[in-house]
């Protein structure tokens, strides 16, 4: 993309929108507010009118682009092929090019791309958990003293790890190192011939949130991969996938991070790049598109994107060992937007959950409806985020599940808030954790 493209999305991004309104039916934001301004069609119209000069590209116009939760439901339903969610992101970049916001540079270039700094910045959170302050706060009911908004933010936090995973996971994990044998002799022979897992070199993309907040989940993901015969390479130098920067219109920063990560995984010489974060996965798959107009990187980026797999998707493609341990309870699954619509992965995590003996899987009504997380919307669009979440929690409650699984750290944090706000006794986790437990229980 040229610089002018960065500033203005091409006409083709909106020209053929005939304003039929189909996208209104599926937009979680429209369905809460019921105003055209809060709809995908409205955002496309605003973008067009702004870019064509009928409207001023005002702060309020750009604010509407930030009201989009990027759940991609409008992209999926549009029969014309307009991608309203993508257009909203593109307009954020237009705004950034026109009026760069001062606070963004230190955040998206100074902090987020540097894992060490990010780990340091989140240290107080881990101490809060690990020094027992959190347990104390709960036991003494101190949380109730917090304003509601802060209490919700506190509730987002999972049970925090002692240390970021990056600081202690070996860069190379072989099945033997974890005491697992090679490929499973009990696995289906035909499947084994078709798709031999033995000795596969798998790159593991450790996302920022997984690293500092959900380290146990990624540790479980690496264990499950190794147990199924993979040698797992987790480059410690990995940087943020770039989604936060892209989400806030800093496309240049996102591209820098993409180039860095591509080169890093090229060095690792892996067949596939696996991640357990829905948002990272969808962003990594878009590197090809992101660097399409960079002659030095276009082909490398496209090749990288083709290698990206969600952990559930990759596992299902292997001759998987059947977990012999047992977990009792009823589980349901929430589809992260960037996994289901962003990557077309939704059967696979369900399949993994159904492999586990004792676990009763129940489908969640409107499982692929956004939970309202969208990365940072609970912070930036608090009221909207909670309204979208309320719809999700009503659906969760009718399942009667004791566990809700979801392959995205953002969704899990949001669901944690939902569970606490709605007083439900439900554990929120990643499907890979349940699978790992079923293996460990063997």
């Amino acid at each position, binding site marked *: 993309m040229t610089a002018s493209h960065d500033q203005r999305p091409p006409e083709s991004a909106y*020209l*053929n*929108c*005939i*304003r*039929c*309104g*189909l*996208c*209104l*039916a599926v937009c979680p934001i429209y369905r809460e507010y*019921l*105003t*055209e*301004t809060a*709809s995908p*069609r*409205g955002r496309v*119209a*605003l973008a067009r*009118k702004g870019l064509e000069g*009928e*409207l*001023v590209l*005002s702060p*309020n*116009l750009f604010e*509407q682009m930030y009201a989009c939760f990027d759940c991609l439901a409008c992209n999926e339903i*549009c*029969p*014309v*092929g307009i991608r309203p969610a993508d257009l909203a992101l593109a307009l954020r970049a237009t705004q950034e090019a026109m009026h760069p916001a001062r606070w963004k540079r230190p955040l998206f270039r100074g902090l987020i791309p540097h894992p060490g700094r990010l780990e340091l910045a989140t240290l107080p959170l881990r101490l809060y958990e690990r020094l027992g302050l959190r347990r104390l706060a709960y036991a003494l009911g101190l949380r109730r003293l917090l304003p509601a908004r802060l209490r919700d933010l506190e509730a987002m936090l999972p049970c925090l790890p002692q240390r970021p995973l990056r600081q202690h996971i070996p860069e190379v994990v072989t099945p033997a190192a974890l005491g697992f044998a090679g490929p499973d002799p009990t696995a289906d022979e035909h499947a084994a011939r078709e798709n031999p897992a033995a000795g596969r070199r798998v790159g593991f993309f450790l996302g920022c949130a997984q690293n500092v907040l959900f380290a146990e989940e990624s540790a479980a993901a690496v264990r499950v991969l190794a147990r199924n015969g993979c040698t797992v390479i987790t480059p410690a130098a990995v940087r943020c996938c770039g989604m936060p920067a892209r989400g806030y219109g800093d496309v240049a920063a996102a591209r820098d991070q993409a180039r860095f990560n591509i080169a890093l995984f090229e060095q690792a010489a892996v067949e596939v790049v696996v991640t357990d974060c829905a948002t990272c996965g969808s962003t990594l798959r878009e590197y090809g598109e992101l660097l399409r107009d960079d002659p030095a990187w276009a082909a490398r980026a496209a090749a990288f994107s083709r290698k990206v797999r969600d952990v559930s998707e990759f596992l299902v493609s292997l001759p998987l060992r059947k977990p012999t341990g047992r977990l009792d309870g009823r589980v349901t699954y929430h589809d992260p937007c960037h996994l289901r619509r962003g990557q077309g992965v939704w059967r696979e995590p369900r399949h993994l959950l159904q492999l586990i003996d004792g676990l009763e899987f129940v489908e969640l009504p409107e499982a692929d409806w956004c939970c309202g997380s969208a990365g940072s919307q609970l912070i930036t669009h608090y009221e909207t985020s909670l309204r979208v979440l309320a719809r999700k929690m009503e659906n969760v409650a009718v399942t009667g599940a004791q566990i809700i699984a979801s392959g995205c750290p953002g969704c899990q944090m949001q669901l944690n808030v939902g569970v606490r706000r709605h007083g439900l006794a439900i554990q929120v986790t990643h499907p890979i954790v349940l699978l790992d437990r079923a293996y460990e229980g063997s």
Partner: protein
Amino acid sequence: MIAHSIIQQLHAILGPGGVLTAPEDLAVYAYDGTFMDRRPDVVVLPTTTEQVSQVVALATAERLPVIARGMGSGLAAGSVPCDGGLALVTTRLNRILEIDVGNSAVHVQAGVVTADLQAAVEKIGLFYPPDPSSIRHSTIGGNIACNAGGPRCLKYGVTGDYVLGLTVVLADGRILRTGGKPIKDVVGYDLTALFTGSEGTLGVICEALLRLIPRPRFIRTALAEFPSLDDASRTVNAILTAGIVPVALELMDETAIACIEEAMHLGLPLDVEALLILETDGNHEAAVIDEIETAARICGETGARRVQVARSEAERTALWRARRSVSPALARKAPNKLGEDITVPRTAIPEAIRRIKAVSARYGLPVVIFGHAGDGNLHPNILFDRRDPAQWAAVEQMVEAIFAISLALGGTLSGEHGVGALKRPYMEKALGPLSIEIQRRIKQALDPLGIMNPGKVFPQ
């Protein structure tokens, strides 16, 4: 510009969040599902009939046009504020007030999404049949104001056939209630029917009492592939004269098929001139199957190369989702499209299609044909680029030619979209001066100041 004092009064009536005046808000309430674009001066989002009443009373006092709008999916620019004014948006009037199982009736506010209404009544075994393609992105109030149709009208009739009564805010702000739960009611003029299809020109529909029927237990859907469009259109009559009443008999031509296949990848054949979608339903499975098989056999006799019955509910749903997306999917081919809605006596369908294709050839712009062939309701869609003045001039002439074809064959301008702003120049030709004069008098009696949706329906 609207006076600040009026905005303040609107705020007092509607409370926080109920009045929108930002340029960005006005710009997105300037359109519906057409290319028309005129901004309102203010947007209001009432939640009760009483609020609507107060808003309209204020509008009358201030001589401000009132344009009722639901989700803005209309295809005749009926909710576009041609002369500015107050866009009265019904989307937050979205409560289902009562489902009366004993009397098979439902009482709803006007802004309930039609698909949500259907889902709510189907949960308890009841059925609201009208199914415009915009079913998930249009409101019941909008459906009533345009007397919307849909594929199932062939067997079950249009929206108006299910309206038992209405709550309407009149032009002076008074609240009129018409009809009621009794099925039979001949006391006085049928005002419910008068407001149904009035396109917001006589009053604002705020609530509706709708008739429901038991939900049919079995459905079968089939897809017939026709190498010849002419054969497909003749098949419609062959089926309907064979003693079967299908739920739906939908036609789509090759361009429609290509667009929908490109959008949805269903594996539809790209080497045929037309597809027919047939559906039968009922409470006796054997009868439903027998009817779909009979229809399929007739298709085979009249030129279908293949007829396939949907094997699962998922396949059936996908087929209907595809059918409902046909109209917007055409925009893959051009930046603009104008979808017409002519209805002809069903024996005239093959001739109407032949003549429309000739118009397309004469003016050099593609006309895609699909629609509810079973009830003679066709949607010829002209594809064009409005930025090209030559194309736009051709479109205007083509519209006139298509309407002339319909009228010459004993048909009419619109089966289910309504007149709105786009078809008003052709009203007099379709109805004649006497009918127009009577309708003007009705309008005058109910809206003497002419503030209810001005610039619509009536010729200038």
